[in-house]
């Protein structure tokens, strides 16, 4: 392969000192192509580096224990007084709630698709098409859906069913509706990750269990699922990291501009880290004064989502290696 590998043009010179004119046969097209594509790769990595570097350098000096452990004081745009505890709390709460909604649904769907459905039946193809489509629906459309379905249809419906005496309790943007909207949005992430891990489990394990007289459901619960735990975890982590930074779906389903107290029930609104970044960068009366606060908030948000992402990438890489060994 080395003789054909003109990717390093030095090959054409070495060892042929007397025949310099051969240099005219440098494969310029190959050289250019390799260089250009390599440069594209480098450029993307550089862009990532610049964004992260800029945020770290400008944000790190302003992150302190006081900053992440206190609430918004009198002035939410002043770096010396404002804290982001309510936003961290709100984001954490909506993400945990979302996980509770999405995991059972996603895992059960993946179990059906891999263990029960026939691979090429039209029905399976429709489900799979729906899952793939759902993955590409814009997040703002999920926001509209959450407002129309969860808040106005289910929320108002619950209000009239529970006879809350005309008062609107559930039929307004709230923590629970934001979480439900995000759960719908991240459903495909969980399904696809779980499916991948279920397919990686050798068929022989299932056959051995069935041959010993276990029923299909017993096989799934006691043999298949324990093996799939890392995959399900990956799915959950990916879903969380995707949802943690999303703002568009929660704009009309629960995020609040400002709240004095932490949310105390499922039908309260909440402050959110990502939404707070949006507020700080667009609503501030004094941009230069807010900038340190803004950078610090972005850094905290980024650390949160990146840590989750990196963990997910590691778990998945390990899982794939294991799957390759088993087959």
């Amino acid at each position, binding site marked *: 392969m080395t003789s054909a590998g003109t990717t390093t043009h030095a090959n054409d010179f070495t060892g042929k000192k007397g025949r310099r004119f051969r240099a005219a046969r440098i494969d310029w097209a190959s050289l250019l192509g390799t260089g250009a594509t390599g440069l594209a790769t480098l450029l993307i990595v550089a862009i990532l580096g610049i964004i992260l570097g800029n945020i770290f350098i400008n944000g790190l000096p302003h992150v302190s224990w006081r900053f992440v452990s206190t609430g918004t004081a009198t002035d939410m745009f002043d770096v010396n007084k404002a804290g982001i505890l309510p936003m961290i709390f709100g984001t954490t709460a909506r993400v945990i709630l979302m996980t509770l909604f999405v995991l059972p649904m996603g895992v059960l769907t993946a179990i059906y698709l891999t263990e029960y459905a026939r691979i090429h039946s039209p029905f399976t193809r429709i489900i799979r098409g729906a899952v793939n489509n759902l993955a590409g629906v*814009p*997040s*703002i459309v999920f926001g509209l859906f959450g407002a129309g379905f969860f808040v106005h249809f289910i929320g108002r419906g619950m209000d009239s069913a529970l006879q809350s005496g005309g008062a609107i309790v559930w039929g307004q943007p709230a923590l629970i509706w934001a979480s439900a909207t995000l759960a719908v949005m991240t459903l495909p992430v969980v399904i696809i990750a779980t499916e991948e891990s279920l397919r990686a489990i050798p068929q022989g394990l299932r056959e051995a269990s069935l041959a010993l007289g276990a029923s299909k459901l017993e096989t799934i619960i006691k043999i298949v699922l324990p093996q799939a735990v890392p995959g399900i975890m990956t799915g959950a982590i990916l879903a969380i990291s995707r949802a943690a930074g999303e703002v*568009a779906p929660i704009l009309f389903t629960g995020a609040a501009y400002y709240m004095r107290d932490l949310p105390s029930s499922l039908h309260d609104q909440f402050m959110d880290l990502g939404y707070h970044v949006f507020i700080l960068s667009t609503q501030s009366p004094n941009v230069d004064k807010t900038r340190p606060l803004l950078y610090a908030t972005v850094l905290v948000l980024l650390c949160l989502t990146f840590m989750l992402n990196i963990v997910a990438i590691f778990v998945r890489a390990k899982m794939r290696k294991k799957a390759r060994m088993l087959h």
Partner: protein
Amino acid sequence: MGLRRGHHAKPLEWLAEKLIFVVSLSAILVVFLIFVFIGREALPVLFGRMNTALVQKTIPVEQMDKLNPAQLQDYLGLTKEQFASMDRDTLKELMSLKIESSSESSTDKDASINTTQWRYLLRPHQWSGYDAPQFIWQPVSTIPKYNIVPLIIGSLKVTMVALIFAVPLALGAAIYVSQLARPRVRELAKPVIELLAGIPSVVLGFFALIVMATVLQRISGSQSRLNALCAGIALGFSVIPVVFSIAEDALTSVPRSYVQAALALGASKWKAASQVVLPAAVPGVFAAVALGFGRAIGETMIVLMASGNASVVSWNFFDSTRTITATIAAELGEVVFGSAHYRILFLIGVLLFIVTFLTNMTADIVMNRLKIRMEGKR
């Protein structure tokens, strides 16, 4: 997968298996519900049931008995519950109020126009005070104007910038990482590029707004600091990982034997990649670009923060631009539930959903074909 169960399931197991089946329908159900619930809010506009005209044809109070209840309810703009709770005198009062208010309202000739009709949504109109017919999105004014053409053009413009910026970079990187790079470089570059997908869009929007906008303005000397170029490039950052990972997958799925055959015939690695592998993976590359388009046109926070949000009809990349997504995000929080403005925002939401739905479906079908061809199935 293809296995039959060893013996008959116990009743409880039967129930559990049915439950699994029912839950697995959730994805289909959700897609269906999205369509129904966004569509439902937009329905009155779709069928021309909304009326925003300030001056309407009025009916004298004496003729009240000639109308049937449904017509009367429509005429007075009441909901069913409101209508049922009112007695005759209240209705009469409302009718005379309506006549009074319409005679009082402005003498502007535009006041009698129902601006939610299709021709005002899509075609230019010469509003009073303007010299020529124009496309105008101005939902908050005495005569609300809901022309969605400026928003569509804005969305397409920003998306175009994003794709022009992102597709060459992402495709180049995909070719390099999957075909040309040494294994160690590949193992490193792939997760790093995929990490770009982990940056929340609000952070990219912040970066475009605070850092990039200033730099770009200094370079280009454009008038508005926030414009389609700034938003488009930031949007490109979020499109790159989408296009990269799908194109890379497609290129990697081309059988290794293709490359080995090309190399054996004396082709260079680049020749093998560009003339053998790339043509074989063209459907996958197409799907990658299609999904990148879907991602770009549906992205909200980046354009909301970095595009400037002025709804003007212009193809100039240096003009401030308002997109469909940013319009929904900025305005839905402040509209009255059930008003014409509210319905129009859901209407453009439906439009967005349909566009991305079709894009995804096309990409999905193309990818499936490619997969079947590469794996030699069926």
